């Protein structure tokens, strides 16, 4: 039993995926399939979450499955949020006409989630690479799932090409590590990287490139806007949250386990990367006219903010990154959920589609307010606390200038988020007949959005216990 417990979430995910493919042929009628498959996935994920939380909590950090995985709080917390994000995303899938009757998307979603869970807990280079590919391939498929939509096909293809390229770079880095050390376990490697030499620099560079793509750090960010814009909106939401968080989980683990002593030399480079990522993401976001592209650039900027915590390289720093990502998962899922809903009702993701939203559906308008303000970093939403923590970590370790850069960036962010809210609250539809164009919201979406709004508020006000989890995750790494 003890050998199964650490990988219980993964086992349940796999079982759920197989179940879905099994029952799919038995469902005939289009309409019953539709809600059944989605609900089945969502409830299955909820059960997975509940069971894992109840019986599969890690006690102390141990290597399991022959040293392939590490069973610790960092992995566990990330896993729980991946499962949560997948559950919410499956509810959003049900709203999209072209997707909701296909069993494959739910299976692909579960497969990607499984891969992310493995990513977050991999303790071995081979396992890590396999996990990354298990995550990526279903995501390529999901991004290009709307076969008849040119943009979606382009998104899937582009994502795959860049993804494959950077995966190859990453793999090259891994093979060099193995070649020079003869070891593949992450936790055996740190001794080989204790001194600053050319090989170490080269390897770090290759590995960083591969991971930078995953979390869309500058200069490997350019795929994100096109992919997010073209992919079905719920997929984009999942990509920008869970997949990015998984990339960060790997990044954190690698940096602490493999390159702890290199970090002092690398921190300036990482700080510059963070600065560029934030600034580029925010400045380009300013000029966007499409909310999905806006969120894509803003998600690049958010990767930059989260990097501040990595740069700080302290316990508080890593705890703040974990907290930042948790908050970001909740907030961005909420934002993409709203975009998905507005997109499927109005058929457009451009700003004018949001005009009069607060009159067409006041509750949805309020949810948009919560999402965008949280992204902008306003209390009492989680975005404020998350930013506060990363800046605090930066200042603790003396990176005052980086905190100032982050804060200047968040002002730019506030400006463009407010621009969207201006459409939601201030502008009206052309004929001012919002009452005739009420946006209908199905119960499942109300459910999903309500959970997210409550989550954003809860983490933003009663943040103590949640930060406690994040700290536990950070402590488990050292």
């Amino acid at each position: 039993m003890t050998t199964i417990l650490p990988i219980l979430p993964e086992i349940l995910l796999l079982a759920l995926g197989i179940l879905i493919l099994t029952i799919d042929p038995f469902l005939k009628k289009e309409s019953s399939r539709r809600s059944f498959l989605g609900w089945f996935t969502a409830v299955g994920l909820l059960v997975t979450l509940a069971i894992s939380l109840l019986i599969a909590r890690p006690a102390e950090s141990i290597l399991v499955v022959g040293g392939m995985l590490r069973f610790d709080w960092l992995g566990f917390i990330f896993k729980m949020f991946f499962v949560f994000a997948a559950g919410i995303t499956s509810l959003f899938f049900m709203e999209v006409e072209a997707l909701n009757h296909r069993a494959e998307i739910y299976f692909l979603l579960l497969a990607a989630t499984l891969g992310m869970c493995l990513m977050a807990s991999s303790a071995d280079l081979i396992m890590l690479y396999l996990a990354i590919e298990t995550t990526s391939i279903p995501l390529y498929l999901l991004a290009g799932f709307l076969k008849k939509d040119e943009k979606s096909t382009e998104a899937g293809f582009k994502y795959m090409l860049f993804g494959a390229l950077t995966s190859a770079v990453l793999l090259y880095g891994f093979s060099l590590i193995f070649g020079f050390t003869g070891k593949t376990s992450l936790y055996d490697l740190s001794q080989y990287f204790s001194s600053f030499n050319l090989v170490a620099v080269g390897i770090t560079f290759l590995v960083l490139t591969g991971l930078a793509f995953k979390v869309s750090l500058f200069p490997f960010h350019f795929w994100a806007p096109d992919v997010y814009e073209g992919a079905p909106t719920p997929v984009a939401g999942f990509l920008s949250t869970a997949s990015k968080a998984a990339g960060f989980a790997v990044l954190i683990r690698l940096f602490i386990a493999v390159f702890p002593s290199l970090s002092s030399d690398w921190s300036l480079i990482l700080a510059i990367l963070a600065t560029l990522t934030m600034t580029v993401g925010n400045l380009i976001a300013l000029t966007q006219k499409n909310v999905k592209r806006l969120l894509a650039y803003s998600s690049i900027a958010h990767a930059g903010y989260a990097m501040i915590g990595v740069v700080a390289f302290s316990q508080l720093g890593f705890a703040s990154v974990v907290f930042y990502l948790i908050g970001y998962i909740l907030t961005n899922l909420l934002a993409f959920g709203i975009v998905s809903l507005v997109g499927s009702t109005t058929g457009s993701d451009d700003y004018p589609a949001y005009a009069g939203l607060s009159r067409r559906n006041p509750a949805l308008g309020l949810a948009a307010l919560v999402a965008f303000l949280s992204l902008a970093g306003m209390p009492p939403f989680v975005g404020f606390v998350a930013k506060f923590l990363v800046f605090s970590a930066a200042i603790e370790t003396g990176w005052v200038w980086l905190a100032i850069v982050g804060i200047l960036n968040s002002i730019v962010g506030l400006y463009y988020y407010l621009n969207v809210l201006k459409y939601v609250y201030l502008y009206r539809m052309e004929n001012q007949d919002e009452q005739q164009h009420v946006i209908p919201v199905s119960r499942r979406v109300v459910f999903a959005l309500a959970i997210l709004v409550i989550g954003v508020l809860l983490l933003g006000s009663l943040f103590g216990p949640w930060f406690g989890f994040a700290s536990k995750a950070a402590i488990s790494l050292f």
Partner: protein
Amino acid sequence: MHFPFLSVIVFTPLVAALGILLYKPEQKKAIRITALSAAIFALALSVWVYFTYDKAVAGYQFVEKYNWMPMLGISLHFGVDGMSVPLVLLTGIVMVTGVMISWGIEDRPREFFAFLFILASGVFGVFASLDLFMLFFFYEIAVFPMYLLISIWGWIKTREYAAMKLTLYLFIGSVVSLIGALVIYWTSGQHTFDMLVLETVKFTPTFQKIWFLPVFLGFAVLGGIFPFHNWSPDGHVAAPTAVSMFHAGVLMKLGAFAALRVGIMLLPEGAKFWAPLIMGLALINIVYGAFIASVQSDFKYVIGFSSVSHMGLVMMGFATLKPEGLLGAGVQMFSHGVMTALFFATVGMVYDRAHTRQIPELGGLIKPLPLVAIGVIVGSLVSMGMPGFSGFVAEFPIFMGIWRTQWLVAVIAAISIIVTASYVLLVVRRVFFGKMPETLQGHITPINTLDKIALVLLMALMIGIGIFPALMVPWVQSGVQHILALLGGA
């Protein structure tokens, strides 16, 4: 454990806002009644807190402390001293009168009152917080709803521009202070955001000199300090009446108060070092604000710039770092809050009826709107510092304080009193006396009972404090003692 007055005051508006959001949009009457009852409840508690505050004991009272995030030393820590207790009362008053004045809002009153109350919660929170983190938390909550309130319900011509400008100015100011606060936190080595502990930490003079200015000025942006005052008149003018009342009446005090509490009280050496600069900036505020106000033709811009001028007096009072100056500044914050609330309420009433705020297009309004005219006259007398009104109680000590520091500054600042007197009297004469333009004949309907109650309440406060300064001065005095102790008994 006593009854948690302050938490109840802080969270009442927030709970009311959430409650209001649960109504259907059509239930406008129920929404308004809920709003008014919540506001009256909060005011009643603030009055209770004000009068039961023990001035003889002084210090922080009604203290409540709950651990919020022990790992970083963040706690929900409330308490009021002699400086903040009048401001809590002021917020209660402006909240009640603001709701009364906004009774007639027809466009989405549900959202309007909800946002207004979220703002009010933030304001109460800042005045009552003794924790640096929570102070920021509430500060941002207080600042942000302004954007929506102005941009949705504001004056259609300038609201988008003014709302964005205001939000960005204030956000920039607050995040600059936030960096300062974080540096204070990590430098103190105490691992707590508790300001009572941070007050006792002796930071090195160099540190204080470097960080005082960002912290103080960051907050003072919201207090309208020159050269960062530019957002304020535009914001005032674009905002709907109740929001202007809140904005000029309470929010600007928020900036001044936070600048005092975090800037001066945590970094007293820095304050001493930079006091001449602050004084210079405040002097520009006072004189320049008064002159600009005197050339405006828009009634609301006159009041907007006069606020810049009067907030300059508050900053000036702080910058003297003398007991008289601080005392005057404390009273001025309250007095100016009530006065501008009254001014903006009356401007709103005039505009709702005449549909113009251009002073040359108005006239003879005293006949149809006698109470409004009296309100403006009382406000004018307060703003020029006439004895017998609260403005005198505030301005006289400030000038005494300035005189003790630098007599020349007092002389120059005194010019503003003359300018103020000239423009407020001119406005009164042009708007309320003389002949009513024909375009307005027959359009001027009388104000309703709620408006009257609000006006009378505001006027009574200003006259009351003017005649019986003992209703306010001892409170502020007890707060000043504590600040002086931190400054090393100057």
